[in-house]
């Protein structure tokens, strides 16, 4: 990637030590491995992997470039569709996207081309002279992007590329969104999220404002007034609860908060790590990330409990395998029923009710069991919460911002993308695509008017 390999300022030795503990779960390919792997691509016509890629990267083309020893060309092919190709190469569930679609799954071989790792090889090793893309002539339009996560960054980059001026408003201290705060540490190592943001902003024409939250420091009506268009990429801010007595207990934690804390920690001693046992409730990638990270931090027993069967888990089989590899105990068909405290008020255990399905409906059985634990991490899903103080609110449907094609919201000139909308499965790559599509729609709209 076009960025200095030096650590950004404020990246301490302790942080490096912590990174070491959370070494890359999926190490990069060597040049030799990449050469051999790239030769496995059949260069399909109308390739199914491209169809399966939410951001429509021309996969056979970039793999052909890798094979022809043109990593820079390969990376440019990737970035031209997905400017966050570096983090997507690391966090994409390729096993259910491009790699699942790979035709090499079908024959006797049953082994897809390692597209994700090849994408990483290209983006990690490309050598651009300057930024890979040149900005178009200035349009004299300015657009506000709310949220510096994958959707916001992707939108901002594409808008800037097309000649627009962009200002990004980010509530957190650092840009990157989920990549900075929400992905397991072992998936994005070496401060990758910040390096990637630096690279994206390298195109120019983008001003980043951090610590600027919607409904607090800025308001949508204000942005609408000051800018030619607004793109909302505010993600999911709230978490679901278990609806149990004692849930407010300090040892009952939200997994996303803990992951964020862990990602930002510069010293392991800053973290409160449960020693003996912990329970993680949930079935998604956050639950898996949480459970595995606890194991790496040294928690003796980690049990992940889910109310349905493993086949219903939203974490893919690949993710579940990662949990098993970390010796996480996975218990299915049980829902938490009671939070039990000791006499001194500390957490004792969780009581679970065994469940089953009848005609598709989840039912309680008569059996229950108890797991002793010193901490509980809730990973039962995040939800959308629009800032309460905001006056101007786009239409919300099924709990998320409704979009009406081309990322348009119910408010004129306001677009939305990423997890805050009801589109897709809340994958990083989908957020990137929605940001890109929004940028194209905004640009088209603004220039048509002109």
């Amino acid at each position: 990637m076009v960025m200095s390999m030096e650590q950004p300022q404020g990246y301490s030795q302790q942080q490096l030590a912590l990174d070491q503990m959370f070494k890359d779960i999926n190490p990069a390919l060597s040049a030799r491995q990449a050469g051999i792997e790239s030769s496995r691509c059949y260069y399909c016509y109308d390739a199914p992997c491209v169809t399966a890629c939410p951001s429509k990267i021309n996969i056979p083309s970039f793999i052909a470039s890798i094979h022809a020893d043109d990593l820079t060309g390969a990376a440019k092919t990737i970035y031209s569709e997905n400017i966050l190709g570096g983090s997507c190469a690391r966090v994409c569930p390729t096993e259910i996207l491009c790699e699942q679609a790979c035709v090499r799954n079908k024959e006797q071989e049953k082994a897809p081309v390692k597209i994700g790792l090849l994408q990483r090889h290209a983006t990690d090793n490309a050598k651009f002279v300057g930024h890979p893309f040149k900005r178009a002539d200035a349009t004299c339009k300015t657009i506000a992007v709310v949220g510096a996560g994958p959707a916001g960054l992707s939108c901002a980059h594409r808008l800037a590329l097309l000649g627009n001026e962009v200002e990004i408003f980010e509530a957190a201290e650092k840009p990157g969104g989920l990549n900075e705060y929400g992905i397991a540490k072992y998936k994005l190592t070496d401060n990758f999220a910040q390096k990637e943001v630096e690279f994206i902003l390298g195109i120019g024409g983008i001003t980043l404002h951090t610590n600027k939250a919607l409904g607090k420091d800025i308001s949508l009506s204000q942005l609408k007034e000051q800018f030619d268009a607004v793109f909302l990429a505010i993600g999911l801010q709230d978490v679901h609860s278990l609806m149990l007595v004692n849930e407010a207990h300090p040892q009952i934690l939200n997994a996303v908060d803990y992951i964020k804390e862990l990602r930002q920690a510069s010293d392991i001693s800053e973290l409160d790590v449960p020693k003996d046992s912990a329970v993680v409730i949930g079935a998604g990638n956050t639950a898996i990330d949480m459970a595995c990270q606890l194991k790496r931090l040294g928690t003796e027993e980690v049990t992940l409990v889910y109310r349905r069967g493993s086949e219903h888990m939203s974490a893919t089989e690949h993710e579940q395998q990662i949990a098993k590899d970390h010796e996480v105990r996975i218990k299915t068909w049980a829902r938490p029923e009671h939070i039990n405290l000791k006499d001194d008020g500390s957490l004792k255990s969780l009581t679970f009710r065994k469940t089953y399905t009848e005609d598709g409906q989840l039912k309680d059985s008569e059996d229950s069991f108890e797991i002793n634990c010193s901490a509980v991490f809730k990973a039962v899903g995040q939800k959308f919460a629009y800032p309460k103080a905001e006056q101007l609110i786009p239409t919300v449907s099924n709990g998320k911002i409704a979009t009406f094609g081309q990322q348009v919201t119910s408010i004129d000139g306001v677009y939305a993308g990423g997890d805050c909308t009801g589109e897709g499965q809340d994958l990083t790559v989908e957020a990137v695509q929605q940001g890109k599509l929004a940028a194209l729609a905004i640009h088209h709209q603004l220039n048509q008017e002109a």
Partner: protein
Amino acid sequence: MADLSIEFAGIKSPNPFWLASAPPTDKAYNVERAFEAGWGGVVWKTLGEDPAAVNVSSRYSAIYDHNGEVSGFNNIELITDRSLEINLKEIEAVKKAWPDRALVVSLMVPCEEESWKKIVKLVEQTGADGLELNFGCPHGMPERGMGAAVGQVPEYVEMVTRWCKTYSKLPVIVKLTPNITDIRFSARAAKRGGADAVSAINTINSITGIDLDKMSARPMVDGKSTHGGYCGPAVKPIALNMVAEIARDTETMGLPISGIGGISNWRDAAEFISLGSGSVQVCTAAMIYGFRIVTEMQQGLSNWMDSKGYKKISDFQGLAVPNTTDWKYLNMNYKVVADIDDDKCIGCGRCYIACEDTSHQAIDRKVREDGSVAFEVIEDKCVGCNLCQITCPVDSCIKMEQKDADKPYMNWTQDPRNPYKDAS
């Protein structure tokens, strides 16, 4: 278990696998290791007149396949750079120690009768089984009037062969250069000169590639390079053709051929033998993997022969020669059409795009309701060219099926569409 032993131009060998004249046969140490490993014979690296040749550094370069394996190999090494005396002493000792193995000595001296007369006598005294005349070396030696410079002129080939046959009782094998327009001319010349056999092919003039940083070909000698001799798996198709040309030429038919060129395993060897070769010579494969590969070569050839009921090498030697013919004798009434097995198809679309862009637009691409694609051959448009089958990465997914099987044989000389029918 099949009998692999051969008698080639009067030279006996326990199996048909010989090491070609090259670095692996440059001295006793290597040759003895080769015999220990099981090679049936060797052609000792080319001897010349003293003072011995002097070599440069470096000498080899290669091209690689997709997996990084060597597919073509190139060298700019000359004939032996050790003295004639040492070589002759070692040849004598090795032959004594390994009487059952074939030991042929490769030779190259200036195109003068006296030089050849002298050296064949010296070699004869070592007890070696035969001579191989190196008329092929494409680099260094031709500049001195030897190697390919001789091999490219049929009259010289004939003349030198005759000298050797005159002054030696040993079988003479003439090694032919492929750097010519028609191998048959030099093969015929060898036969006229009295050669007992020919061996083909020697290496092909080549540049394997350019180092784009240094802007020089490889192998590089202090920043400069020169063309080398190409060998290895990549040259096999050229070699097979030349062997076939010699095998089916009316003038050279029956002349023993020692097949050389990219032989890396038993199957390659079987192919050369089926086109008439009586022995095969291997070099590149041994240089890449070591002498031990002869184990699998012998085993594989023997197992295959058993499976086919061939008891000895001569049982299948040359069987493919009558089926190698001129284009004009091919059956104009034979027609094949591609058929795609939908169950095996993985949907890569390579057959489709290859046919669509570069052939006859004979494959139909259909998108099914579930979004997957199916490919179907449009029989009327298919010319049976094989391109789709070649591009298909799945084993036996595309088959070429015969059509109009009831039509009789008719070649181009008989075809009414041939405007020169009467002349051909």
